[in-house]
């Protein structure tokens, strides 16, 4: 004969198990209804925590076709290479805004920036950056000059820059701006001066 208190305990445990199962089933349904974050192709924003730094971004403006210096305070990590990446991501965040002065395609991002001594910076853009970029000599040149001049103005010691797309060499950004050679930073700085006036 099974003791009465044991039967009651088993019955209570069974009810708890059933209740937990129903609760878990409901939670699973709710989780499935939440949109998947992985489908959001926007680049990550710079880390919001940590001390911010005053920087100068060289922002392209399509309408008069110029490059304009713009101060920004953004939090930057300590590593030189990570700083370069966050710097360019902050620039791209401006271009991805709705009221962007120089719109770039959704999903455009900087995959990595490699700083190689002596004085070489390699900017690796993602495929969406180049594939969705508008075509034209000036519009492509503004993008290239904005990236390189922003990088060299804030990270000292860069003499030449190579731009890759998805880790590979590409002939041009979108049919015009040459990506097959190394950019001479001093020549691009001179170009930035030319582009600062309409």
């Amino acid at each position, binding site marked *: 004969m099974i003791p009465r208190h044991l039967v009651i305990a088993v019955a209570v445990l069974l009810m708890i198990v059933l209740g937990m199962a129903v609760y878990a089933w409901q939670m699973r349904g709710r989780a499935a209804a939440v949109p998947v974050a992985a489908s959001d192709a926007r680049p990550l924003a710079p880390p919001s925590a940590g001390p911010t730094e005053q920087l100068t971004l060289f922002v392209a403006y399509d309408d008069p076709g110029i490059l304009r210096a713009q101060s920004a305070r953004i939090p930057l990590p300590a590593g030189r290479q990570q700083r370069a990446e966050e710097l360019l991501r902050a620039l791209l965040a401006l271009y991805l805004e709705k009221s962007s002065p120089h719109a770039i395609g959704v999903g455009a991002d900087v995959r990595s920036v490699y700083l190689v001594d002596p004085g070489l910076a390699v900017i690796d853009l993602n495929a969406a950056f180049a594939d969705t970029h508008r075509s034209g000599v000036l519009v492509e*040149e503004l993008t290239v000059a904005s990236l390189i001049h922003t990088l060299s103005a804030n990270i000292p010691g860069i003499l030449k820059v190579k731009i890759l797309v998805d880790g590979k060499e590409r002939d041009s950004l979108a049919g015009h701006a040459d990506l097959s050679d190394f950019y001479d930073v001093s020549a691009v700085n001179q170009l930035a001066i030319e582009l600062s006036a309409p």
Partner: protein
Amino acid sequence: MRWSSYPSSHEAPPVVRREPRSRIAGFLFIAGLVLVSSFLLSAAPPKRLSVYSVAANYSLPVMQRANHDYVALLELLDPLGRVNAKLDGRRWRIRYNNVEGEFIAGQNRARIQGRAADLSSIFLLENGRGLVPVASLSSLLPRFLGGPVTVHEDSGRLFIGSIATHFTASLAAGIPPRLVFTFSSPVSPSVSTEPGKLHITFTREPVVAPASSTLTFGSNIISSATYSESNGLAEITVNTTGPLTPSFSDNGRTITLTPASAASQASSPTPPSPPSAAARPAATSAANSPGSSPPSAPSPSSYPSAPRRYFAVVDPSHGGDDRGEALSSTLLEKDVTLALARRLRQELENRGISTLMLRESDANLSSDQRAVLANTNHPAIYIALHVASGGHGVRLYTALLPYGSGDNGLFRSWSNAQSSFLPVSQGAAASISAELQKQQASVRIVTAPLRPLNNVTAAAVAIEVAPAGSDLAQLTSADYQQLIASAVATAIAATRDKLGATP
């Protein structure tokens, strides 16, 4: 009655009557053999499917069943990854890497990763081998491989991923001209000839058609080339009036066809040369050309001071596969640059300036080919034309040189070939700018990382034309194009002495 008058047996011995019958039978037997063997010889070669992928290039037999082409799916996937198949009655299960597919013999519906997939005709099982219709590969394979697949069903060619090898063809200047094929990847084709034709056959390479399957060159010796593909092969047929000698360079990326008589002709005195051409004859020469005499100033550098045939080279940028900017849903940059280039050539020639246009049709030309064509003609000025929907007015560009001069003694760096000519390029841009401003056009001069400006060994300017206002239709307006072409030609004519004095 004729029966009664039939000759008796002693007049016609049986032996004599049987001999012609055996001869006829023998003749019929031999004729039959000849017919059968000729039929077998003339029968089409067995159909094959060539597969091109990053992992491997291979070909498979294609089987005809009930007027449909089939291939064995296991053999098709085998070189690409781990694959195995199981037969369970009429059900045939295949597993490729982590993707599972299930096919049922006699049915035109399969399941791949649990999802239905329709076949264009029924799935066949033959001796345990699963056969799928070739027509269904473009929908089936991406489900197994997880990437894009392009099937040229008629020609039996299957491309997995972005594997295609593109090519351009251009006629290089010279006497006689040479036909240069440039491929995006190394190729190793077989070359065969027949009277009037040279065939370049690609069995292993994923060579694909250019924008137009027929390319015309306007040369008496090499008139045209046609691209075709069939039964897993791609072939370029070059139509020629004389024998051609092929040579391979650039690690198999370039094939140059040289007329066999080139060597002997090169050693003899050369008559006045015809215009060089790129993909089509694109040059006309004005009489009394100021550029027809050799450069008056000695070269300060090591560049050869060859006779100048054209004073100006006009380059309608883009063309062929390279459409440039899509200015609208129906208007492409490559078409507008060509129209503008024609006007500019006319305006230059009206001012007595001999002009070479680098393309006069929708031809593919790489940046390197454009620079080579310009440099080999030793012009005084190279003008590249671009058109843009963004911004206003006209932008003039001179070369933004890449890092490092790279010059090494007598040799010049290809990337910085423009460096000695940059001052004269900037002078030409200033002159064009001044003339455009006289015409009330909005103008701006900047440097740009725009090839082939940095590769040209002459004054080199790129002109990007945007609408003066917000109306894109202005780009195709005859008045607007004429205004710009006229101003540019006037500026070049005004500075011809300065430009002509450069090396």
